């Protein structure tokens, strides 16, 4: 409806954050409604942008900030917001996850960060603003700034938990800064060679000036990828993630765990397809072999380390490490020589549809599981898996949602986890990368064992309670402010799964337009 929608979806949460500081200090009750209002506005404009992208002939819309002229200066350095089929989907995902996590946070924020609700919700809104900005922007330097906006607010949200969380947050600050600074350095090298900061402008200059073989571009690629890999928590730099995410306040975990790594994967795809271009990444650069092997190691090590955990949330964080392995490996699956033969991008980079679909489905699964884990820990009184006895009869709705999330993580149809694994495994077969397909199947089996261990504990009574004490614990379900977002998240797993054909269709279209779409 409005041509300004791409920027309005970021303006909404920023203004909500300002009002949250101004009015929240006097009356804490206005914070949560402001968060919901701001994110609701974002979601509305994100849906609007999605329909605009669908309606446009090139399946992409550009918004030039402050009205600089993008037609006369296509390689100009004004900031461009560019939305195509891929990021229009991610843009709807971010405020939707934020809304559910904000609803869910009502019980936890006053308890875990007492007296700091306005500060908490301000940071919460700014984190989502940063993530949406990273997704919507078409400018490489602007991406760095918004990456730091989301990282800084993320560090602060994690550090607001226990003192133990502050130690983890400090380690995260150090590693995150190294990652972001490497990215910035890589952008500097690209600017020297191409004279542009616009993502498609950089790609255009690389092609137009024949820089495909340039060592400076190669160094820039290595630096940018080193930076993104730290942010991704990809093997071997994943150690910061389990500490930071499992000790963060519950509601922080519910928004950071589903979104941070997933938006980083989106950034990786964006850098591969738009910034350097598929012809560079899949053509002149031959990294597919080693990266898929590293992601196999990431998947297996994430799954094995998850086995060693006795803490429910910590177990889930190691599964995120494995899921990142799925997505990075999927993005690098490649039919050798496919680009040179001029084949379709979706048939050359066979795992790309699976990777981008998994961004959406993994965000929904992680949200569902982290919220369910938060609710279970609240009822069990401890985060140890061994303390989860009898939760099925105590709070059945919570446990059913957890089981749905677990089934999706294992990959049982018709949940979305099955379909993303399906696309990834068939991509691995098409590319002839059997090791990746086998790692995926092993990790699914391990997930099954892991989750049934938890479910088994929750289903039965405590075996230590002998005799008369062994009666079913009284029914005491979590409040509806927690159950509504949890049930919605669990339902979304089925919805994303059932609409997998439509979503995969959009993503294939995205790859088509990224390959053949006109520049500008």
């Amino acid at each position, binding site marked *: 409806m409005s041509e300004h929608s791409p920027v309005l979806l970021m303006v909404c949460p920023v203004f909500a954050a300002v009002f949250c500081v101004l009015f929240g200090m006097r009356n804490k009750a206005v914070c949560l409604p402001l968060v919901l209002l701001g994110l609701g506005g974002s979601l509305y404009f994100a849906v609007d942008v999605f329909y605009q992208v669908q309606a446009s002939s090139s399946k992409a819309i550009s918004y030039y900030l402050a009205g600089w002229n993008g037609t006369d200066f296509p390689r*100009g350095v004004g900031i461009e917001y560019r939305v195509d089929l891929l990021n229009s989907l991610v843009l709807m995902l971010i405020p939707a996850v934020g809304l559910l996590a904000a609803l869910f946070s009502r019980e936890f924020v006053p308890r875990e960060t007492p007296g700091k609700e306005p500060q908490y919700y301000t940071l919460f809104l700014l984190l989502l603003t940063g993530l949406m900005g990273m997704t919507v922007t078409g400018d490489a330097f602007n991406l760095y700034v918004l990456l730091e906006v989301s990282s800084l607010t993320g*560090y602060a949200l994690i*550090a607001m938990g226990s003192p133990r969380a502050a130690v983890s947050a400090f380690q995260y600050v150090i590693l995150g800064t190294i990652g972001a600074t490497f990215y910035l350095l890589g952008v500097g090298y690209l600017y020297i060679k191409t004279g542009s900061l616009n993502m498609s402008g950089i790609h255009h200059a690389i092609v137009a000036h024949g820089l495909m073989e340039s060592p400076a571009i190669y160094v820039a690629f290595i630096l940018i990828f080193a930076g993104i890999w730290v942010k991704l928590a990809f093997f071997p730099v994943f150690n910061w993630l389990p500490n930071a995410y499992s000790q963060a306040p519950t509601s922080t975990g519910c928004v950071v765990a589903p979104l941070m790594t997933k938006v980083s994967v989106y950034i990786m795809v964006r850098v591969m397809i738009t910034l350097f271009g598929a012809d560079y990444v899949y053509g002149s650069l031959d990294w597919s072999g080693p990266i898929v092997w590293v992601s196999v190691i990431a998947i297996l090590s994430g799954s094995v380390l998850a086995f060693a955990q006795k803490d429910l949330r910590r177990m889930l964080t190691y599964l995120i490490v494995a899921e990142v392995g799925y997505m990075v490996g999927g993005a690098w699956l490649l039919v050798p020589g496919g680009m040179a033969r001029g084949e379709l991008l979706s048939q050359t980079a066979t795992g790309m549809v699976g990777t981008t679909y998994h961004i959406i489905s993994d965000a929904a699964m992680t949200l569902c599981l982290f919220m369910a884990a938060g609710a279970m820990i609240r009822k069990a009184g401890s985060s140890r898996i061994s303390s989860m006895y009898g939760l099925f009869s105590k709070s059945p709705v919570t446990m059913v949602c957890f089981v749905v999330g677990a089934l999706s993580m294992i990959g049982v149809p018709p949940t979305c986890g099955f379909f993303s694994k399906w696309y990834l495994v068939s991509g691995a077969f098409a590319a002839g990368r059997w090791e990746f397909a086998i790692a995926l199947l092993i990790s699914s089996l391990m997930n099954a064992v892991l989750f049934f261990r938890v479910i088994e504990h929750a289903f039965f009574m405590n075996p230590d309670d002998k005799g008369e004490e062994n009666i079913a614990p009284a029914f005491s379900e979590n409040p509806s402010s927690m159950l509504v977002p949890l049930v919605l998240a669990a339902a979304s797993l089925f919805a994303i799964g059932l609409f997998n054909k439509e979503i995969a269709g959009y993503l294939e279209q995205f790859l088509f337009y990224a390959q053949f779409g006109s520049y500008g």
Partner: protein
Amino acid sequence: MEEFIHSKFNYWIYVLLMMIGLWGMIAKNNLIKKLIGMSIFQTAIILFYVSIAVKEKEANIPILPHHGHDYSPLAAAAHAGHGDGDGGHKDDNGHNASPEGHGDHGDHGHAGAHDPKVPVPNEFANPLPHVLMLTAIVVGVATLGLALAISQKIFKHYGTLEEDELLKKVRADDYV
């Protein structure tokens, strides 16, 4: 060899500073020393970016001479468009919105190249890297402030900022 080092002097310094910073962040035991390393690391990047802006001959700061009265920004824009691309775009962005329109800027292009009143991009240092680094400095300050606040919280609870002692206390907490 001397020529090799001399010609890219600031780039060598930037690499050196970056390595010092990285070493400080990874190898130092004290959290505050890690943060000092982080600041050096970020400053190295600022030096790198500012070095990009340097032109071969003596270049001036990018401010228009003669108060800009007899100067056509549109012609300068078209002129810069023929350059190497990283010279002139950014100072024109503001002028693009001017009501004179965009359609006729091609006509001025070649005329502008010979007009002595039109500034030559090579006479000015590239302002864009400086602008980028202003943002990066702000980001660096925010990161440092946040990290110091977190270390304060750590010190209040654990009473130490030495990483090895801290990890010992953290592990002791974990196994209670």
